[in-house]
């Protein structure tokens, strides 16, 4: 009897896990489809990146800047672009009045991971775009250690998406939708920003991969901490 129960429980849990993955993916697909219909977040992100990079170019003029300043400015561009587009997933649900429906048809965990996946795809597209433009127009910015740079940008994107998603969920519930988002997100994202700026600087200076391991450890533990906290807390934000 006991083994049967255990088997049923284990099987039930397995089905629930599969359903969670399916439900999250369904929410991701829904968001992606409605995003492609309006292209609101994508166009906001693209225009933000273009204007930020052109401001950097105007202010630099013909003078070069140091590598650490250039690595910092890369992430300044990413930060402000991300702040313009990443709150969209949750704010749009509130504006359309569809958050109630979503509460009925999906578990909070599925909603969180679906939105997280959506933001992650958005951030990765954003970062690839920013890095391409940045290295095309700013000739001083040359990456010497590609392994460090790729890992830094990848982990940085995941970290950005995780922190931005949970803050977006809070923002969507508050009355002021847009203005508070960077205010709330900046202190949470700052440990991540400081670390990725440091990692980018190491990559442009041509450091060995081992030298950046401390940065990567920090990024991974940041991601784990924020994902765990969001997973536990999202229930309280999402349900009225």
């Amino acid at each position, binding site marked *: 009897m006991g083994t049967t129960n255990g088997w049923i429980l284990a099987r039930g849990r397995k089905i629930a896990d599969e359903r969670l993955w399916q439900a999250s993916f369904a929410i991701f697909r829904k968001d992606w489809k409605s995003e492609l219909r309006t292209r609101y977040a994508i166009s906001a992100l693209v225009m933000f990146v273009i204007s930020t990079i052109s401001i950097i170019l105007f202010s630099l003029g013909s003078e070069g800047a140091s590598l650490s300043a250039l690595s910092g400015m890369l992430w300044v561009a990413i930060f402000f672009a991300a702040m313009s587009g990443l709150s969209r997933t949750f704010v749009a649900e509130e504006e359309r009045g569809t958050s109630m429906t979503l509460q009925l048809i999906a578990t909070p965990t599925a909603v969180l991971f679906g939105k997280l996946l959506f933001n992650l795809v958005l951030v990765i597209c954003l970062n690839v775009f920013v890095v391409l433009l940045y290295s095309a127009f700013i000739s001083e910015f040359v990456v010497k250690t590609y392994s460090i740079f790729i890992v830094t940008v990848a982990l940085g994107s995941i970290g950005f998406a995780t*922190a931005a998603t949970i803050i977006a969920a809070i923002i969507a519930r508050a009355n002021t939708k847009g203005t508070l988002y960077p205010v709330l997100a900046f202190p949470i994202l700052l440990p991540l920003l400081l670390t990725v700026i440091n990692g980018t600087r190491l990559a442009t200076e041509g450091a060995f991969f081992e030298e950046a391991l401390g940065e990567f450890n920090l990024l991974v533990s940041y991601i784990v901490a924020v994902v765990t906290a969001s997973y536990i807390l999202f229930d309280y934000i999402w349900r009225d």
Partner: protein
Amino acid sequence: MGWKVVLGVWMTAVIVLALSLPISANPQRWYELPKIPALEDKGRIVFFHVPTAWLSAAAFVISMGYGIRFLRKKNIDDDIKSASAAGLGLMFCVLATVTGAIWAKFNWGTYWNWDPRQTSIFVLLLIYGAYFALRSAIEVEEKRATLSAVYSIIGAVTMPFFMFIIPRIMSGLHPGSADDVNSGPVVSSGGMNFTMRVVFYASLIAFSGLFYWMWDLHIRTTRIESKQIH
């Protein structure tokens, strides 16, 4: 009532001792304070600056603790306690930042130089600011309490990176930084002698008592205010 008088006398004694005990390079008598490398004659700051910095972090933890309690029990009184602790934490955070900056002007030459410790206290200040900005943006009492509790927990999750990890792996001027060859973290290493330790911990207790007193007052006035509104 009685403990408040004791606290007043205690605090006066701490202030008098902290300002009057002589600092000498080679302390022989019991009342002399040691000269800590890199702090030199300005070492007295530990009696005032460290307790305020410690309380600004402790208030954050208290605020988060009552935030968690609110999320579990949905009792609005816990939110009052949480917000009051955060308000006092903001005040102590400003005090720690200002005393640290003034001290930095005389010891390092500039008020602000983005030492990792300064960065971390600045971020704590930002989190407190964002916490109150969020609170002022929400009108419904229960929603405000829930969302601000959630935000303070997320802030607390990222706080260890600033408080403990980044300052120790990045180089800086503050005691306890990665490349600090002088004294290490002042409190946990053996830089202080017995007298200095006694005065320091007495000051820590005095400041904590002061915090508790102010916190209690703040909670009670907020309760009265919220009763008048309803």
